[in-house]
């Protein structure tokens, strides 16, 4: 005769955060979408049958790129602040992140305006136009979604709804923003360096 053990297990039981796991999974899936668009872009480089070509119309958006990439640093600083419980510092760095992201989007808008009205390049002009607007547009869509999320969080921070204990969720969201920035490195390399 023997008894079933009911004694608690001494070893600690750790499970990964579900938010983090889900965000990393989402990023994996999104990466696959971007991969397909990037592969299409690379495959179609130089295959347009008529102009305008990237060499003729594209300028390297250095300032935009610096803004977007530095927003990854500012959001990291914001994460550090909320981790230490400094809500003011968090809000400040978070707002700066939004500003940098907004500059990027505005910069992209100016670039597109120039391409459409000055250079006559639309999504239906040629293969370059199709692939360029799809890839950069896909990325810009992600930036816009990120900005909406960032702004909502800022709003709730200013009204005092986001507090120190939400640090984990903030970090999960920040993962998404880091991903958007990392994708830009790939898009930038492919579109403005390899493809030009």
């Amino acid at each position: 005769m023997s008894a079933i053990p009911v004694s608690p297990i001494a070893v600690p039981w750790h499970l990964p955060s579900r938010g983090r796991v889900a965000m990393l999974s989402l990023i994996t899936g999104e990466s696959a979408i971007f991969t397909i668009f990037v592969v299409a872009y690379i495959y179609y480089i130089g295959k347009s049958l008529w102009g305008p070509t990237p060499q003729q119309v594209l300028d390297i958006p250095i300032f935009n790129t610096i803004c977007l990439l530095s927003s990854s640093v500012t959001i990291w600083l914001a994460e550090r602040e909320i981790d230490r419980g400094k809500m003011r510092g968090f809000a400040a760095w978070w707002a700066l992140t939004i500003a940098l992201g907004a500059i990027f989007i505005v910069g992209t808008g100016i670039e597109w305006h120039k391409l459409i009205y000055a250079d006559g390049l639309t999504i239906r002009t040629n293969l370059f136009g199709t692939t360029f607007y799809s890839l950069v547009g896909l990325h810009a869509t992600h930036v816009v979604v990120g900005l909406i999320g960032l702004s909502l969080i800022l709003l709730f921070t200013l009204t005092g709804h986001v507090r120190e204990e939400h640090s984990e969720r903030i970090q999960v969201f920040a993962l998404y923003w880091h991903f958007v920035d990392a994708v830009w490195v790939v898009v930038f390399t492919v579109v403005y360096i390899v493809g030009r």
Partner: protein
Amino acid sequence: MTETTQHKAGPAHSETIHLPAPTAWPIVLALGCALAAAGLVTSLWVTAFGAVLMVSGCVGWFRQVLPHEAHEDVPVVVQPVTITTTRRVVRRLEIGPEHRAHLPVETYPVTSGIKGGIAGGIAMIFPALAYGLIAQHSIWYPVNLLGGAGVGPSAHITTAEIAAFHWSWLVVAIVIHTVTCLLVGLLYGAMLPMLPTRPVLLGGILAPLLWTGLLHSAMGVINPALDARIQWGWFVVSQVFFGVVAGLVVAREGKIKTSRGLPFFARMGIEAPGLMESNPNAGPPEYSDEEKH
């Protein structure tokens, strides 16, 4: 559960479980997304309606989870129990480590063969050089015999040329020597479980055989001209030197247990209850003393 019984181990008590509350917002959002897409094939008004649903779905969902996730409480009653078996408990056959032992129980590890190969390879250089000095008055003669195999034309090569120093031949000779030593060492190590005792004696016989066999068969193909000049008697002497040194090195290495006594599953790293010995340290600490069988 036919052969076990449950005993109450305490009073039944009520508890409350939090479960996420049902909500309609996910379906509203999903319908919004679907209609937004459907609008592209029907009418943009449908898309507009879908967008309205999407926005309201997002807002509603947001309010559902923030600031606190909506949940409902479900009361449950739980009854603590212990469970006992009514099966006849039999003692397992004790299987000792020597049970159906597959010999050898211990052998030298494969790596010791490689170490032996390296040591032997260094040691055999000396008799080979001695042969060159004594028989041909040049220490480069044996080196070039080996190294020349891989270099240059050699159909009408003179003895003087072989006795001279060629640095390229030296490099090739070192490479061939190293690779062959390692390979022979590895082969020797792999064969050790078959001959786990007396590594010095067997090394002295077996390793030279392997060496000579490898080179004798290969040299004739690679470079027949040089092959004809090799004096196999001297050759074998240096091989034996190699073998004895390799054997001595192997003997100095510790023995390890072979896993040949274990079943196939265990050696594959697969747990097979019933075929293996049980691991008393695994799992929870259980069984009070008087219940142990």
